[in-house]
């Protein structure tokens, strides 16, 4: 099973700057950020990963205490296909 999402932007995540505070997760309006569960950065913190569907709204950057995000917007949205099983695993 799969669905199509429109991705309007993207973020570059400075993984090693992250302190695993989780604040970006609820801040993201399309809910396309997920924290890793077992993967940790060089300082031992879990960090966020981006799923398809980012709108480039910069809410994550706005709430992040550690300057982990760089935000980009696409002039034209991109259609991305999301596999439900893969998404389910990502969001678990």
């Amino acid at each position, binding site marked *: 099973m799969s669905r199509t999402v429109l991705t309007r932007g993207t973020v570059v995540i400075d993984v090693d700057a992250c302190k695993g505070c989780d604040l970006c997760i609820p801040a993201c309006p399309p809910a396309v950020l997920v924290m890793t569960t077992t993967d940790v950065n060089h300082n031992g913190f879990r960090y966020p990963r981006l799923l398809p569907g980012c709108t480039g709204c910069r809410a994550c950057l706005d709430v992040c*205490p550690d300057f982990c995000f760089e935000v980009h917007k696409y002039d034209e949205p991109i259609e991305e296909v999301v596999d439900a099983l893969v998404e389910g695993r990502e969001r678990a």
Partner: protein
Amino acid sequence: MTDHPGTHLVAPLKPELFLTTEHHLCPGCGEPVATRIVTEVLCELAQQRSAVCVLGIGCYTAFARMLDIDTVQALHGRAPSVATGVKRMLPDVSVFTLQGDGDMVNEGLQEVLHTAARGENVTAILLNNGVFGETGGHMTATSVIGQRTKTSLDGRDAEYHGHPIRIADLVARLDGAGYVARGSVHSAGAVAKTKKMIRAAFECQVERRGFSLVEVLTMCPTGWFVPTADGPDYMEQTLGQIHVMGELKVARAGR
């Protein structure tokens, strides 16, 4: 994906007025968030080369090394008088203080009230997390009734510990204050609203309408004994109930 044709940068990793973004403040701390907003406003108002920051003493003192802004370090509570001296000698420069609640409302209560009453055209930014963060999470004059801190382990008790001071409300009553508001950084929406307040505060300074104060509620999960992810909710349910968000004073020109 970033070199996909037709991409534009919305916001960079390192904000313009930061020399470095690396710091040792706790996970989930609201202070860097508030400070970033201030620097964004200075850039939007084209004051990057016309700004002096007077820093108080607290966790945020670490920003002295990080900010790409001419900075004067003050003693605990004393930033308003130092800012006064700077502004009187540099009247066309945007002078702002960056202080915590322990700094401004405990040690420096007299300083902020007098500077506001005098109508000094400086902007005070209060990072209010309801605790003395740097010393380990002790009660301040803004800690709310029931709040558990290292010096009020059973929760602040009105009879024993007294009541919190709503500093923005106090300052708003002074004739010398031109703009007073209270915001927070516990959500993206709050950040956006607070940024508007900070902009209005600096505009008040530029237009010489008197003293401006923006009190920004910031999360301190360490001082609040909560997990980082719970910081925003804790703020809304405790500090935010007493220190209420909104604009408290907007003086017109020619006051």
